[in-house]
């Protein structure tokens, strides 16, 4: 092994690159992380199905609060960002740096739209009377979705840095493709987690006449 490059890219025992493997391990750990947060939210939904009390002392139902059309839109945007991420990874594997840049800009843009929707949603919910302090629902909802939003924000930051890094000419070859692919794994995972959160936190509230938890409020009276 007189080639130094050979030492850098020494074959691994499994044939899987270190970076890819460690990202999978991190995602396994992150599964438990989100699993704990989602469990916390669902446990408290089961325990307190009737929503929360706002600052004026009015009982509020979660279906009054949610804007399911908006959240469906932002979910769709996040899904499509995953599609663009896959295109970016594919472009990088083929060495098409310009195509990579275009697609990654798209991912960043869509990620920012998602974050914008979340900021809007949080502001809106806050003005509707749901705060982190006035109810258990507020605590679990904001911390769960906020943690997911933080993951998205970190992903966006990562991709922005990668986008600018690509102009230095150092993002290329096998290593560059691997780095982009690892970022892609992270991005897809964050997307999948949102699909679960969207289902478990938003959609189930609209199941059946009274919502999944039996809130006593018909789901249609929005």
């Amino acid at each position, binding site marked *: 092994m007189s080639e130094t490059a050979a030492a*850098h890219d020494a074959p*691994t025992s*499994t044939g899987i690159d270190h970076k890819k493997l460690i990202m999978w391990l991190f995602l396994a750990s992150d599964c438990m992380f989100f699993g704990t947060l989602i469990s*916390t939210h669902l446990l408290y939904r089961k325990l307190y199905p009737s929503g929360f009390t706002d600052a004026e002392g009015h009982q509020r139902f979660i279906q009054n609060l949610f804007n399911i059309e908006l959240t469906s839109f932002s979910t769709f945007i996040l899904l499509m960002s995953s599609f663009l991420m896959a295109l970016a990874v594919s472009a990088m594997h083929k060495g098409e740096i310009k195509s990579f840049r275009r697609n990654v800009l798209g991912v960043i843009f869509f990620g920012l739209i998602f974050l914008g929707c979340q900021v809007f949603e949080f502001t809106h919910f806050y003005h509707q009377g749901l705060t*982190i302090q006035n*109810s258990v629902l507020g605590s679990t909802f904001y911390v769960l979705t906020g943690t997911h939003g933080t993951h998205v924000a970190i992903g966006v930051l990562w991709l922005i840095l990668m986008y600018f890094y690509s102009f230095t000419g150092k993002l290329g070859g096998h*290593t560059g493709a691997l780095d982009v692919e690892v970022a892609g794994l992270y991005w897809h995972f964050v997307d999948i987690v949102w699909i679960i959160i969207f289902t478990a936190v938003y959609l189930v509230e609209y199941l059946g006449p009274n919502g999944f938890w039996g809130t006593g409020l018909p789901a249609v009276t929005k």
Partner: protein
Amino acid sequence: MSHDSHHAPVASKLELAPERSDLGLIRPDRTTGWTDWLTTVDHKKIGILYGAFAMFYFLVGGVEALAIRTQLIRPDNDFVTARMYNQLFTMHGTTMIFLGVMPLSAAFFNFLVPLQIGARDVAFPRLNAFSLWTFVFGAFVLNASWLFEFAHLAGWLNGFEWHKHLAFTDFAPANGWFSYAPLSGTYGQNGQALRFTGVGTDFWIIGIQVLGIASLAASFNFICTIINMRAKGMTMMRLPVFTWMTLITAILIILAFPAITVALIELMFDRAFGANFFNPSAGGQPILWQHLFWIFGHPEVYILVLPAMGIVSEILPTFSGKALFGYPIIVFSGAVIGFLGFAVWSHHMFTTGLGPVPTAAFALLTMAIAVPTGVKIFNWLGTIWGGRVRFTPPMVLSLGFIWMFMCGGFSGVMHSSAPADSQQQDSYFVIAHFHYVLLGGVLLGLMAGLYFWFPKIFGRMPNAPLAYIASGMVILGFNLAFGPMHYLGLAGMPRRTHTYHAGNGWETWNYVATIGAYILGAGVFLAFANLAWTAFKGKKCASDPWGGRTLEWSLPSPVPEYNFAQAPIVATRDAYFEDKHGGKRIAYENDGGEAGVHMPSQSWMPLVASTGFLFAGFGMPMMAMGVPHAGWIVITGLGVLILGIWLWAVEGPGGYMLKTPAASGSPAPAETAAH
């Protein structure tokens, strides 16, 4: 790769001119002394640093334990106040688990795993350094609470405006090591966040959070290393058992720590931002904390004990002159313990009223987990059976491990019976049980490991007579201290109570236990002092003083920085033993030599990034104290963390080629290359 590939192979890194990163920063690469230790990415040096810090904190935790025992030596004692006592037992437990046992295990992971699998380093050398420094700063934050506490007791804080507004002044954590809500949490409506405890809890929250990050980063790294960097021929079922147990421990860490991470985030939101996760006045359920804590906490028990089991599984075959009895069963049992470890958490909560079905299920699963543990013990006995046993200090400590751990296991099975447990809950019986497991088990196992591998780490042999005396004192003192606690617990003595009245029949055994604790403390101190002396001044010894079985013994002592001059190719389990005495020799790849082996470059960045945690770790509790502008410290910390990670990323892995002594076809020569 980048510019770093062009270096010609050198015999020492000091021959090279300092390398500049793309930003023009000089990498701390060709350095010696302090800079070298602060920026090292060598897994062996990182392992030594982990070990040194862990042994220091063992002594800190030991002093706390002795203060507790001194307080309890006689009824109605007033050696420490009740307030101080709470802080002592909380910090004792936290220190021993997170700053003693886990980092000492990590020291072994670091030093041994690459050597045992025939690798030259871990998969991510700089991430490894990051784990180390994050641990160091997390530990420092946790213990800095004592500095505030002493400053408070000395009256130095009285002049500050914020100090006058504090409702509680316990600056060191005082909730017990599992910080049960609602005691650790808040009460009151609409974000009032009134508290039951002082800022010690905030130190605890942020300290454990930072330590968790260190453990997670290290575990990702080690799983990756073990799965991906094995030498040729080193199949999974040829891995040394210690490496196997490291792998299982690391998997447990990455799956169990997220639960405590989330629990700590939730508790932090309760305390700092008035959330209601565990706030009973607003509908929060304190029992959720117990569940989340023990979903982490019970795997944590196996995170503590599995490395020690791995160490003992290396030592017993070496000194019995036999291969480990039932290697696949030992490995499989370890995996089963790891798996079942996630399914027994509620046995810590039998008295909370789970209902008959969950209680029965958790009781049965808890009994079931005793089976793989028992299997291991029988395998160890089978290993010794018929062997030519050499009673060296590591062997004596390992036998002590089996014996003491078994006693702890027996009382553990007693706890698995829910009706019996409801009598034993929160009594000294529980204290006796887990000290037999964690001290008689884990600490003896780790001490055995220290005495076993010290000759490999430093090339020097610890003083044997002193080691025997220390081992005897530890085992004797330990049994004197914790044996009587079984009786005390069954006689009704509650744990976490700063004193007791005369006339309950507890006086004698408390006296005995305290004397035992003094003997134990002196024994541990003697054992560690012996080791510390050995590291610098001990008698030099050969590279394979014990007749070792695994690859690390095929290397010179101390191990050269490149580990293997040529990468080994193994053909069997216990490769080095077979190489010496059996038919299957270790082959070597045709690398190294004049062409050199690739060495990673050193870096400041892991240390810089970790420093961010130091700022955040101080800032969070200071915010809770009401110190003005403390929030800026936290923001600075986050900035430093992000800056460090960014510089780390753009710095690149770097590296250079290091010449190794040519050695084809035989193990590396005993004398090391100049370095």
